[in-house]
């Protein structure tokens, strides 16, 4: 079972992602800020991370940089409320960029693609 780390400061989003992705058959762990996220990356070695950008404290872009500095190849999906960051050079280090929407189909497809699932 693949583990997905959902990083988002909004509790309801974390809950939604968790339930939807668990339904898809993933193990889902969550982090509500950058520090926690980095800790969990180390402790839980997730297979994929969905990372919100705008968060209190350390933002998603910095978290992404730190993850990359850890010399890991964990796929990271930037999942954000706005599209501007798509043009941010730093975001290029991520594997995908998704604008958050109530319909999680695109997210699920992307996760599935990145994890190399057959289905």
């Amino acid at each position, binding site marked *: 079972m693949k583990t997905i780390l959902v990083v988002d400061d909004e509790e309801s*989003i974390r809950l939604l992602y968790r339930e939807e992705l668990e339904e898809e058959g993933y193990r889902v762990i969550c982090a509500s800020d950058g520090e926690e996220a980095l800790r969990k990356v180390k402790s839980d070695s997730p297979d994929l991370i969905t990372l919100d950008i705008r968060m209190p404290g350390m933002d998603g872009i910095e978290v992404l940089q730190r993850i990359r500095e850890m010399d890991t190849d964990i796929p990271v999906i930037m999942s954000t409320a706005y599209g501007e960051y798509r043009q941010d050079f730093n975001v290029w280090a991520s594997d995908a960029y998704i604008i958050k929407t109530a319909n999680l189909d695109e997210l699920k497809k992307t996760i599935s693609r990145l994890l190399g699932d057959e289905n």
Partner: protein
Amino acid sequence: MPKNSLAENDLFTELVEVFDHPTVRREGLLDSVTGLIRSGLHMDCCFIRMLDFPDTIPHLAGPEESGCHEAWNKLLADEWALETTFSGQGWPRDFEELRCGNRVAVPILLRGRAAGLLFLGSCTDSISSDRLRISAEGVAGLLALLLRRLRSYEYLQSKSEAMTSLLRVSSRLEECRNLDQCLSGITRAAAELTGSSGAVLRIAEAGSMTVRSLFLQKALCPPPMGTPNDEEAAQRAMASERAMIINDSAGLRTGGPVESNLLALPIEWEGIGRGVITVFDRRSAGGQGPLAYSRQERESLAALAKVGAWAIAQMRDASRVREISRSLRNRIKELALLHHITRAALNTDDAHVVVRSLLSAITHREGLGFDRALLFLFDEDAHLLKGSMGVEVIGWDQRDADKDQSTPTDGGFDYWVRNVHRDLDSRVETIEVEVDDSGGVLAKTVLERKPFHVKLPRDQEMVSVEIIREMGGVTAFATVPLVGGERVLGVIWADNIHTLRPIGQDDFRLLVSAGAQAGLTVEKAMRTRAIERMKGQIMDLQSRLVQWEKLAALGEMAATVAHEIRNPLVSLGGFARRLAKMLTPGSTESKYTDIIMREVARLERTLEDVMDYSKGYVVADMERISLKVLVDECVELVRENFRSKGVRLVQRIEEDLPEILVDQRQVRQAVINILVNSGQAVGDGGEVTIDVCTETVGVDRSVNISITDDGGGVKPGDLDRIFEPFFTTKGTGTGLGLTIAQRAISGHGGEIRVDNRPGVGVTFSVLIPVDRQSMTEERGSVQDRGKA
């Protein structure tokens, strides 16, 4: 010798009767009176000599040898001698020389002065000298009374005659229509009143005398007028300011062809100035002469001069009244004209409409009534006058034919403009005239900013053969510059090509004033337009500024707002979906969750639009994609939206469509935005058609996605604004849909064309070049990766 003589009373009665006779005349009067006195008093000799009467033949009776005759004749021979006898007491000193026995001479006293002499002589001694004297004095006294009465009568008679003829003259003068007619009437009357062969009226002008009027009886040829004689008399009269009578013209004449007497009277008439009226060659009714001029002619002439002055003043008053009424009439015309023009100007700020209205007024019957009016506009840069518009009254035949049904003037100005005028625009537009120094009248009108009234052949050198031919062979016309502000805007041409009615001074003047007024009006219209345009621009700028401010604020807020709104939306929508999965499809709860999901989706779309717009467009993810797939996706995405609105979607998609390299999210967004916009425009029961094909123009190949609706089209005023951000006619929506679409497509080097058919619908054609894909790629790579 009869002893019984008539009683003196009988003589007196007879004398009174003679004087009282209705046809009494001076001629022969004294003869008969002398005869009566001699026989009445039984005298041998009687004569009367009056200073102002024709000479009388002494009535002598008695024997020749008495010596009376000789003595009387001697006395009478010398008038001068006679006059001297009246000096003193009036008794001839040399009566002693008379050999007649009894004799007496008594003066005839008028107003205390001797005006004549009555002489009585008797060769017998039968009458005492005292008795003789008493009889003589009595008769002389009566004669004096009778003569005075005769003089008064004659004076009244002559005055009344003079008055009658003056009255006749003045009534004749009253009918004169102009000054020249009046003056020639005066000269004619002068000749007639004084019994002259001719009369000349001279007026002093700039130091010399100019002949203003001349009258000659036919018989007189060659006319004496202008001979040094006549002129010199006039000049002398003028210099001395006194009437001048020359009855011995030889003394004055310096070689003139006609020998005649002259009477020259200085005059001063208000409105004419000073001058001299001269009559010459006075003759009797039977043509005998020349007769001398006397005080009487001078007085007649002076009276005539007064009548003349009065007549001239009258005429000037009359002509002033005529002038005033004419100018009033013209003023009314002018006002009517200006009313038309101003009304047109009020109703529109279009200078063309104003000018056309002016042209109509120039040709309108209630206006200036020209047959034709044309406007040439001046192109300053090209130095050209170009025919711009023209108005013509339909030919007379046509107009008369029309009259059978309705009179064109009945319907007033508007009817006239609509039905009686014919536009000449297409014919006029072909005319071009160079504005240079070659002196053509149209060029001159522009260069000198002056109106011209051209009459052929008089002004032949001002017009070219070509222009006359172009204008249909017209022989008289007027040109007026149309000056607005500092510039000559054009030239108005007016003529009477059909009726050939001459262009009068009034017509011309009115045309000039109408032109000036129109110039002002046009200028005003132009200024109003400029101000309107500027106002529009300022308002435009202002609203754009507001938009930019909105945008800036949006940009700043976008991140925060998006975060604050999108996240809750994601949760709302996400959990609604989860909920929906647990519910029985078709249940009430399921319907509710559907509504929540749909509304969340709509909110997300709106948010997307605002976000897209606020961040500015950048082509980001270029991908090669099948056009057909892309379009199908778009159609699929709006299908539900259309169905729920009752809009029918027709697809005409070519099979063989190429792949294109685009940011498919952006292009999809553009196509969807247009589709949704069209769907909203048609509403329930409407139809939206999407045609997709490729187009090749020259070497450029593009794909063309055309979206046509039957929603009645865009209001022409709104057409320019539909791509403006925040412009919306719907009341709902952000007004960003089409803006984003246009920006997306132009970012791909393409364009959106709009074919608006008011009342029918609109076609939006999205054109994206196929062969410029590399360019687009470049564009994609140099994108601004700016601030987050």
